[in-house]
């Protein structure tokens, strides 16, 4: 190409991290190169497998150790098929190859998998081993539920899972001594990563002008002001698919994983302030204390890996009509802070969603945090439901969040929000009205179904027909009404 070129060599950009025991430095990486491809194609580490390249099967599971916003080194499972190299800066990645000792001795989770015959064709096995390793690191004797939760992001088509669950029990009962050893190791790794990170400038890649890795909100504002068309990458659980499956051009990419300020979850008086980069796993650690009903719901979103990677900000920003957390935030009356280099504004989460694919996000703007008001009264009625084709790790067919706060002296607060019922997550205003007016008609079912039909005309797609969605919305409300009126909860998890 006949382009006048100055001889000034553009500065090299390095992404540095540790892989198992090895220090890795990648110069000017292609920011859409995935960790999985890097492992398999560049390093020829083929233990980590590609099953789907969309974060749904778990065959590519690795552990990622990262120093979190509180200065602790935390290891979490992740799907390497949808992690881009820049996300790994200053991390410690552990792949299945890193689990076996120097002289070939097996890790307790590997021993347990052999002992229990937890593999048949073996292709999903390294992924399961890594998920089990993630569980093992968390501490001994997890409940069966904890084990199942930690395996939700891994598919096996051969075993029927029994032997793998058995291996989980075996491995987490054993090995408490070696785990102490691993604490020491972790301290060691924490020092290494701190050393790696300290004194480093934020990374801004000039050539190709393709990605940046700001460390502060201020830097993010500046970068966005120059790159208004840039794609903000948080957990990449969605953008990973844009790249892997839709061949979408997402450059320049702005990786916000290094901005600690965006990750805090704080309680401030009567509200919870959640940074946009807080992951589902982070949310699970805090939100259920104030809203116990969210524990089950959030556990139904993605598998363990996706919950570790996916963020509240990413979930809302991508404007999915289902919007896993959106109906909840809307029903809770949450607000969100939107920021750019000139200022900031606060809007209701509800008004963020304008129409399909269209959100109230101006060029150069990003989500900084969410404010979730705490319940004003202890007898507030709040329930959330998610129905999908498969109960766990599946995209929602219909989700619903019902919030009802009764006041003797003034109008009650009623917010019923649904996902999967319209082109955006949306409140059922007619249904709310009917509920407020306490319609005590003879034919409740008919009134409810009419109200919902006025509020929504859902689509038919592979997750369910329009009629099914309407019926579900109606019946989920019925569940809530039964809970409010009679204190009855219908839940197959809890059983009869």
């Amino acid at each position: 190409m006949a382009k006048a070129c100055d001889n000034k060599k553009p500065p090299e950009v390095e992404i540095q991290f540790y892989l198992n025991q090895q220090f890795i430095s990648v110069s000017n990486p292609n920011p859409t190169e995935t960790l999985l491809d890097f492992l398999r194609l560049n390093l020829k580490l083929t233990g980590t497998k590609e099953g789907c390249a969309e974060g749904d099967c778990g065959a590519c599971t690795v552990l990622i150790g990262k120093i979190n916003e509180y200065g602790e080194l935390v290891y979490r499972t992740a799907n390497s098929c949808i992690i881009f190299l820049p996300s790994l800066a200053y991390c410690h990645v552990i792949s299945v190859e890193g689990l076996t000792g120097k002289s070939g001795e097996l890790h307790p989770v590997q021993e347990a998998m052999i002992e229990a015959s937890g593999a048949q064709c073996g292709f999903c096995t390294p992924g399961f081993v890594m998920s089990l390793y993630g569980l093992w690191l968390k501490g001994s004797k997890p409940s069966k539920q904890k084990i199942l939760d930690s395996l939700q992001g891994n598919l096996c088509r051969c075993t029927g899972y029994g032997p793998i669950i058995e291996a989980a029990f075996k491995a987490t009962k054993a090995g408490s001594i070696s785990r102490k050893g691993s604490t020491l190791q972790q301290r060691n790794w924490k020092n290494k990563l701190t050393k790696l990170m300290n004194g480093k400038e934020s990374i801004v890649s000039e050539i190709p002008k393709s990605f940046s890795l700001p460390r502060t909100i201020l830097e993010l504002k500046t970068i966005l002001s120059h790159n208004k068309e840039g794609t903000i990458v948080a957990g990449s659980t969605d953008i990973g698919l844009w790249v892997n499956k839709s061949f979408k051009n997402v450059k320049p990419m702005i990786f916000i994983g290094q901005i600690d300020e965006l990750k805090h979850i704080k309680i401030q008086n009567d509200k919870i302030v959640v940074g946009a980069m807080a992951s589902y796993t982070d949310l699970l650690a805090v939100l259920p204390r104030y809203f116990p009903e969210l524990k089950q719901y959030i556990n139904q979103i993605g598998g363990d890996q996706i919950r570790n990677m996916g963020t509240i900000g990413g979930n809302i920003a991508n404007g999915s009509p289902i919007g896993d957390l959106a109906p909840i935030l809307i029903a809770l009356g949450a607000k969100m802070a939107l920021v750019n280099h000139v200022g900031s504004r606060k809007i209701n989460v509800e008004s963020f969603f304008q129409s399909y694919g269209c959100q109230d996000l101006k060029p150069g703007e990003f989500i900084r945090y969410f404010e979730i008001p705490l319940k004003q009264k202890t007898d507030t009625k709040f329930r959330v439901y998610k129905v999908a084709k498969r109960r766990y790790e599946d995209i929602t067919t219909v989700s619903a969040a019902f919030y009802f706060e009764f006041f003797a002296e003034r109008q009650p607060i009623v917010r019923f929000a649904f996902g999967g019922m319209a082109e955006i997550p949306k409140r059922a205003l007619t249904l709310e009205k009917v509920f407020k007016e306490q319609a005590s008609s003879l034919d409740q079912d008919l009134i409810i179904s009419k109200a919902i039909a006025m509020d929504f005309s859902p689509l038919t797609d592979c997750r369910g027909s329009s009629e099914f969605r309407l019926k579900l919305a109606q019946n989920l409300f019925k569940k809530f009404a039964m809970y409010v009126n009679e204190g009855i909860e219908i839940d197959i998890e809890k059983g009869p």
Partner: protein
Amino acid sequence: MKVKKKSKAVTSAKELKSEKHESLKKFVTGRALYIDDMPTEAETLHAYIGKSDFARGTISEIDYKDVNSFPGVIDVFTAKDIPGINDISPTGMNDEPVLVDKEVSFFGQPLFVVIASTRAQARMAASLARIRKEEKEPFLDVSDKHHKDYKLVTEPLILERGNVTEGLSGSKNRVSGNMHIGGQDHFYLEGHIAIAKPEESGDLLVFSSTQHPSEVQHMVAKVLNLSSNQIVVRVKRMGGGFGGKETQSNLFAVIAAISTHRTGKTVKIRPDRDDDMIMTGKRHSFFVEYKVGFNDDGQIKALDAQLSAKCGYSSDLSGPITDRALFHSDNCYYYPNVRLVSKPVKTNTVSNTAFRGFGGPQGMLLAERIIQEIAFFLNKDTLEIRKINLYAKGKRSITPYYQKVTDNISERIIDELVRSSDYHTRKKEIMNFNTGSQFLKRGIALTPVKFGISFTATWFNQAGALVHVYTDGSILVNHGGTEMGQGLHTKVLGIVSSVLGVTLDKIGISDTDTSKIANTSATAASSGSDLNGMAAFFAAKKIRRRLENFISKKYKVDKKDILFTGNSVIFDGQEYAFSEIVRNAYMARVQLWDSGFYRTPKIHWDRKKGKGRPFYYFSYGAAVSEVLLDVLTGEYRVKKVDILHDVGQTLNPTIDLGQIEGGFIQGMGWLTNEELYWDSLGILKTHAPSTYKIPLASDRPDDFNVRLADWAKNTEKTIKRSKAVGEPPFMLAISVHEAITMAVASTCNYKINPRLNTPATSEIVLESIGRIQSENLV
């Protein structure tokens, strides 16, 4: 107490000492090599398929400008560039082109191939062709009565015995109905893949993730116009197959081979998961229509049924699959008068193919639906109807295809399971519960399985094996079967180990390789260990006989007094190392390697007459499943499952239990969550794990007890009197479907059969509840 029971089942398996899967250590360390893990030359090229983006119509032009100019693209080829015959139909029907350039018959049909330096380049470039086309309305729905012009992909089968018309008219009670049975994607975790390497003078070495290396060999030869002896196909292992790699590997292998032929370079092809699911066949969905006549105690007098299968655009294996559906439309039940007709319908969808059970599960669902119809009609327990219709001795032992059921143990299996699962008490308790519970309902059901073992294409029931004993006493085994996780290699190693008294650490097994064993059959039809195990047994036995002869001559001992055990040979009160005996035998010029060949005896089948003995024997089993249903959302949980299954004398209890549990869960997926969804244009919308949901660990029944019927013995002389285990347990999951049916039926007090279609998604369940409740009001 629950836990106790479970651990008991596990211990009972362990008591029968068994070897674990031979590759376990490699699996857990990530060191097991799959084809994509194999090191290849740096200059390896990558092929990718350009596919149709519509279901039916004619291509007027394809513009390859953007494809050709994409960085890294080396070559693009189309149908006209295929050197040999453009067909990979596995049954010689000539209806399955590798690539098409004019008439498109399904969404995702391969049109052209891009070869590039990297996979990413080839894949991206393959998406850039501009296709000009005239679309036509696709045929999609086999139950659509308006389409009279549906074609069949192959000759239907009719099984007829007795007089159905008279049987029906002479029956006190008659019910007719229909059922939609969904298909299923295999979702092997390792997708399709092939590597072709150039060898001298145009010969090729092909690595293919296939259950049928010999067929891949023949197909590659055919499309390249070479002879079979120029092609070697090797398979170390697959990351799951389930039937999805019986014929579907052909496409990828021949494309890799043509690409290598054109470029002279090693070429790899690995479709993305979505493309794999779009371009390869699945389990057939069926539409079944039936009319059954029965007397007041529920005994069946006559059954008339038609089984229409959605075959896709070509025949593939649809003929034998629909045949097997008919062969299993009786399950364990005797039909005095019967007519079963298959209708293998051509549709504008990907050509459906083999999948664990091979039509059997769909046929068996019909049998169990018939039982349910009778039970609801007479207001009796389905178990009672089942028992009264079981095959028995004499006249009541004849199947619709005239084979006699002589090894029937279904009654004993059912009775033992009824006792061990406490079926009757639980059923009573569940009915009581349902009376008092409006929104949560429980359901329980026991369903049996009888599955015919043998390829119905009789000639496939043959196998070969090679056993090499080396002078250091180590052994290398090779046989015609492929390993896909089912533990075939482990079983074969166990057999050789016991014949020669050598421990497993001294026995290796090499890749399945068409240059070692010729003309192998697909590793399919549950037959892997029956066939290859016996062949390996014969090979090892020949070597052992020679060693015995040698010892008996040299050491003057009676052959009967020579013991081969624990890497030793013991005779005359002396213990010799196996390696020492072997070395001595070698010095005496004794042949220390040999082949074994096995063909299944007694079987024969005349398809035209619908008569014969297609199956060497039957495998049996039964399961009791209990579910809890949320009437408001249609969601349910499988709470408890008890299985009693017959594998004859087990070759390896760990492997067999693994097959039973895994097969059951896979069957449960088929009947519950796994829904394939095509839109009205014939576009498959469920082509990735994000939209196609196989069971998760969380879906496993809370309480899951599996026991082997350890008293069972194969009445036929199979290897160590064992029975095949791959497919039969899949159908035990029909009990889950019936348990859901029962929970749904409880919403109208069991007065109406909900006639639950499959898969019984929450949507189907909720729809059924609505339907029977409004029927009940009428």
